């Protein structure tokens, strides 16, 4: 197996992680600063980046579409729209209800976009059309959000705008255990359906012919992907591009498609992408660059390059 590549991945993660922990504004070793601010950030990058990447991989296998991803198919946007709606609507509710409601809304938003996509998938919509539907869902959600924003009071607006920029720094250290627990709950069970994912690699009918309970597996894929995307969206805001490009980079890197290898590699690359994007922000601390801007600069060319290399790819 590719133990060397795995090792390389770990080294990169350590290096960038170290840079983020200790590199900011000189080699400051103030323990409190590191524990309170930087350690949560690094952990969030690792888990959120890795989890988004896995969600993207699940979607690519499920939709049999190498261009599927949480953002491109509108799942992140759906989640954002529901969260935005709740942020504006939950004014005056107790903080507990408002918090819980937000988690639920984030999940429902992701899930409802999945349901729309599955409906079209079952009407035999082509892969390219499905992506266009995803992009339209995104722009629908963006319009909805801008309507909500224009109707809202100043305070919610400020909260919302902060959140919608997307950042791995939003998770505070008291919130961290909850975030980590949710991530583990959303990631670890995926290991148990790696075999089914492999069987889905060829097509749904082949999976069926190998004894896979396709209906049950489909529900599992979609709920876990929705769960993963909604956790990230909830805690970090909408984060683009990692979900779609990490699986590609992992495939290129490993030259394999078997999920037993690809899934851990994808997680690792997602984590690295998040760390790298975050460290760019650290290197340019004076400006207010958003992590999504950095990811867009990396992500868009990677996708274009992929499409260029797959010219004969058919709809």
């Amino acid at each position: 197996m590719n133990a060397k590549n795995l090792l390389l991945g770990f080294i990169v993660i350590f290096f960038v992680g170290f840079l983020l922990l200790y590199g900011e504004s000189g080699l400051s070793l103030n323990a409190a600063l590191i524990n309170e601010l930087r350690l949560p950030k690094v952990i969030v990058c690792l888990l959120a980046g890795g989890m988004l990447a896995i969600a993207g991989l699940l979607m690519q296998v499920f939709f049999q579409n190498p261009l599927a991803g949480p953002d491109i198919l509108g799942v992140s946007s759906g989640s954002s729209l529901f969260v935005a709606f709740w942020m504006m609507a939950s004014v005056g509710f107790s903080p507990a209800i408002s918090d819980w409601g937000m988690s639920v809304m984030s999940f429902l938003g992701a899930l409802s976009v999945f349901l729309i996509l599955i409906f079209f998938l079952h009407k035999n919509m082509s892969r390219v059309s499905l992506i266009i539907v995803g992009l339209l869902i995104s722009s629908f959600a963006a319009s909805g959000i801008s309507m909500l924003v224009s109707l809202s009071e100043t305070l919610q607006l400020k909260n919302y705008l902060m959140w919608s920029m997307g950042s791995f720094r939003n998770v505070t250290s008291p919130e961290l255990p909850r975030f980590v627990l949710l991530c583990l709950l959303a990631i670890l069970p995926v290991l148990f359906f790696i075999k089914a994912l492999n069987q889905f690699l060829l097509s749904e009918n082949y999976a069926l012919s190998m004894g896979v309970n396709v209906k049950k597996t489909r529900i599992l894929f979609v709920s876990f992907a929705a769960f993963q995307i909604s956790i990230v969206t909830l805690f970090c805001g909408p984060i683009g591009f990692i979900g779609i490009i990490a699986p590609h980079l992992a495939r290129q890197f490993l030259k394999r498609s078997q999920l037993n290898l690809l899934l851990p590699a994808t997680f690792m690359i997602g984590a690295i992408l998040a760390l790298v994007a975050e460290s760019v922000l650290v290197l340019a601390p004076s400006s207010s660059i958003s992590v999504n801007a950095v990811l867009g600069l990396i992500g868009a060319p990677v996708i274009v390059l992929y499409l260029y290399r797959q010219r004969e790819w058919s709809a």
Partner: protein
Amino acid sequence: MKLLKIEDLAIGFKEASFKNIKGEVFPGTITALMGINGVGKSCLLKTLGHLIPAQRGSLQLAGKDFSQYSALEFSKMVSLVLTEKFQVDFLRVDELVSLGRSPYTNWWGDLDSSDQQIVSQTMQQVGILDLKDKFFSELSDGQKQKVLIARALAQNPQLLILDEPTTYLDIPSKIELLKLLRKIADQNKVAIIMSTHDLELVKSHVDQVWLMGSDGQFETGSPESIESAGLFQKYFYFN
């Protein structure tokens, strides 16, 4: 003993589109399913492969009704080579063939030594051992077809169903493929059902023909008897 017994079967995706199908299949034989485009050959094969439900009628595999099999049990009896194209980058030939063992492996999909032996034996039998490190996406149509057959065989089926396996192949590859299928039928005692449009190959290489007529008639018989009854003439040549 009969492996597959079909009685009074009606097939279709939403409603019965072809009715009164009956037939029998024995181990070690090749059955060619023929009929013009759109008559429902793929639909019949998918019904026999338990991918879609029968509209009506009875289907028995090794003396048991289809409904008595669990999905996993069925997958150890029947395997498929379909026409649908799929695009997976970087899927190696040996990994693809190994997928055929997945009904037998544990939750992680680990191949034990006997699984590995079956995979390499199968690749050898089909003649793709030298391709095992290649990526599926790099292969020619003929090679891809063989790899898919190897995957299906690794599933260790008693019934192998192939949907138009010869369609995209040139003539020498078609003949080679039918010889391969004959070898598989003989050596593994597998029953093979394949749909095809290659009349000449059918006449020389198969044991039984099932003909789905454009008028809704379902005819069965040896290639010779179908020929002498003028049924090829009736359904495939137009004056």
